[in-house]
């Protein structure tokens, strides 16, 4: 009991070391990040509870299976989990036979309009046009837009997920916004 409580207080880096020796120790990391990763996947899936639960389990299973390869490069452990989750969600969408519609709250679209410097954003026709442009973006670009505007992550968090600098993450996002503005 005391030992378990002691383990639960360890840092992520120490827990990763323990999990590399015995997979049962991964349980503390699982407890620590389950809700966060579930919410992330749930939003990306457009509020599909059952599939979110399956993909979250799959994400943690992949993390457990690959924990030996994990290297601490000074980023949060969660950014590694997010990267696995992004891949798992993309695999899920690719495996679907039918198109799945993911609804985005209107205020998030308005934020996207503002950042892309497109002025008329209250018009529903314009909003639909922007959504159409988003749907035509390649996967790597849509992932970035999703993280920034639909998951509402800051550039530091995005940079950690992709193991790039904050400035690089910012540049990548603003290039996509420029492209959206140009095509609008």
């Amino acid at each position: 009991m005391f030992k378990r409580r002691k383990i639960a207080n360890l840092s992520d880096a120490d827990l990763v070391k323990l999990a590399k020796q015995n997979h049962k120790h991964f349980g503390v990391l699982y407890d620590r990040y389950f809700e966060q990763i579930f919410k992330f996947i749930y939003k990306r899936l457009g509020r599909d509870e059952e599939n979110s639960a399956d993909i979250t389990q799959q994400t943690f299973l992949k993390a457990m299976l690959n924990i030996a390869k994990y290297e601490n490069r000074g980023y949060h452990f969660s950014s590694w989990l997010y990267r696995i989750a992004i891949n798992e969600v993309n695999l899920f969408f690719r495996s679907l036979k039918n198109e799945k519609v993911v609804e985005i709250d209107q205020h998030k679209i308005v934020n996207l309009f503002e950042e892309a410097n497109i002025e008329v954003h209250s018009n529903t026709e314009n909003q639909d046009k922007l959504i159409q442009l988003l749907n035509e973006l390649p996967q790597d670009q849509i992932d970035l837009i999703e993280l920034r505007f639909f998951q509402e992550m800051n550039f530091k968090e995005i940079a950690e997920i992709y193991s790039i600098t904050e400035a690089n993450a910012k540049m990548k996002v603003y290039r996509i916004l420029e492209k959206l503005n140009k095509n609008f």
Partner: protein
Amino acid sequence: MRKFSVNRKDKQKPLSNDEINRYKNFSQLSHEYEQITKRPKKPLYQNRKLFLYLLLLGLILYILYIESKK
């Protein structure tokens, strides 16, 4: 494939932590991990190496038995 659309109705309510925690199940995850990583148990007749080894051992014991009888 996935397509985005705009939700113009009310802002969607996020799931509560209790609702999310219903899906939390580390023992199931651990079981799945063990299923993937543990060595498959082959029956003896399907394990060629072990079968031949036991056959060879049997033959040696038989020869020793015959020799000791002489």
